[in-house]
């Protein structure tokens, strides 16, 4: 499972990096006279509502999806690890404040808060990353807080403290490394979550704006052509599902390695 996931993810990264250079078509070049044309040898995924090559747009869209995933995971994991470790290590008031903020943010189901934030901030790629990071850090913070609570009682942490190490050093060098395997698993699954959330927001018209190629926006455009051009819906959706499946396979596999007890289930 982990190998299949890794293969899908690596293929997607390769497609995003070198795909647009290999494709003979410009993802924004329009050929209106051939709009909605189905798959052919020259255009394996067909043409869209403006006569643009769907494969070229999917390859360009892969960059957006991976970029959003990477940005959201980087920002939210850094923020979550920082706040979670501080809350867990110091406890007391700091922990109370961070925990209450986590409770409130967790009270919003799924991407509802992201929808709300993008609705008021305006649809754009930057706002999508911002909104998804605002909800994303909570998961990491909860995870790291729990680990930090346990780690501060470990002998090696007490020893470091006795040797005069400062709190910052203890958190960075001793507490955070104990949480890293779980954070890596969370980040891998978080990539899947961010990619799907970006596509969902773009599908609702709240994310990446046309003409920038995004898989969610492409699916949204396909909705008006379910009867006459289903290929507009099939290929972008397949790309999202495959990439998300790849990250889920990878995350599940990594989780089984990190915590072998789960593998038996």
């Amino acid at each position, binding site marked *: 499972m982990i190998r299949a996931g890794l293969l899908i993810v690596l293929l997607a990264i390769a497609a995003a990096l070198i795909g647009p250079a290999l494709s003979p078509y410009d993802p924004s070049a329009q050929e209106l006279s051939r709009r909605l044309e189905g798959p052919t040898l020259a255009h394996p995924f067909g043409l869209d509502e403006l006569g643009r090559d769907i494969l070229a747009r999917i390859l360009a869209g892969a960059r957006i999806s991976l970029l959003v995933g990477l940005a959201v995971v980087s920002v939210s994991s850094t923020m979550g690890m920082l706040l979670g470790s501080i809350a867990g290590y110091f406890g007391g008031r700091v922990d109370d404040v961070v925990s209450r903020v986590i*409770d409130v943010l967790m009270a919003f189901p799924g*991407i*509802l808060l992201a929808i709300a934030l993008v609705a008021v901030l305006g649809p754009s790629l930057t706002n999508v990353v911002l909104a998804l990071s605002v909800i994303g850090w909570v998961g990491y913070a909860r995870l790291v807080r729990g680990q930090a609570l346990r780690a501060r009682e470990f002998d090696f942490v007490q020893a470091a403290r006795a040797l005069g190490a400062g709190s910052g050093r203890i958190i960075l060098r001793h507490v955070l490394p104990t949480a890293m395997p779980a954070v890596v698993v969370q980040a891998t699954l978080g990539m899947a979550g961010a990619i799907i959330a970006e*596509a*969902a927001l773009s599908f609702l018209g*709240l994310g990446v704006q046309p003409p920038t190629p995004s898989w969610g926006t492409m699916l949204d455009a396909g909705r008006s052509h*379910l009867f006459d051009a289903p290929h507009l819906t099939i290929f972008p959706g397949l790309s999202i599902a495959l990439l998300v499946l790849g990250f889920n396979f990878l995350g599940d596999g990594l989780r089984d390695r990190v915590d072998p007890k789960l593998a038996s289930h």
Partner: protein
Amino acid sequence: MLRYLLRRLVLTIPVLLGVATLVFALIHLVPGDPVQSMLGESASQEEVEQLRHALGLDRPLLVQYQSFLAGLVRGDLGRSFRFGTPVAEEIRSRLFRTIQLALAAMLVALLIAIPLGIVAAVNRGTAVDHAAMTAALVGISMPNFWLGPLLAILFAVHLGWLPVAGTGTIWHLVLPAATLGAALAAILARMTRASLLEELRELYVLAARARGASRVRAIVRHAFRNSLIPVVTIVGLQFGAVLTGTIITETIFAWPGVGRLLIQAINFRDYPLVQGCILFISFTYVMMNLLTDLTYGLLDPRIRYD
């Protein structure tokens, strides 16, 4: 039990207050002037001031906040800028459709997940198990905004069996419910399998077999019933995901519920209505989680609250 109930209720209040505060702050996060943004660039200064006054946005922030919370306690979510009607009324008129869709989706999910989970657990480690669990992982990875149109292409466009959108008959509910329920079905199937495997290791299952119960009877009558406890909990906890899922599903199938209302409100920049829908969905989610927590003890007599 009563003490636990009261404690849980008291602990929920600050969360609800935090949610309400965040939703209140939303309109103030709009870049520039939210009133100008609602009316558009062509609106005159007089119109802008009029609407600002009508929405109460010309008052000091603290007064606005107090009045927002006071309104909330009375069930007053303000007035929709687009429809000119109370926000609560707009939500109420669409509530039935959203609940209908959410319940139908949960039913679809259970009908798929439980047999799939049982078959996988009973055939653990075999090709059947791997196929069932791969199907579940595919289900989790398949976004509903893709599954919905795919089901519509197959069952409405090609086969012509079902209507593609709208409401009216029970058949209109099938595609939206299947779309919304698929991801939940995948999660529940994995949960049913894991939970049943756990129960099958218990001694009482072995005892039932030793007393002469057939394998099927030992599974269905003994292990399965106990394995349902975590499954029911997940159904409750996943209600939030289903509720959020209605936003996309209702948009795809033009289903006139609260989720579609939210997207329409965003498109119209009707911020009071956006705030109302967000508040309604998140409050429902918090209360459903609370209810799940409380009913957990009723399902499993081994759980004590003191």
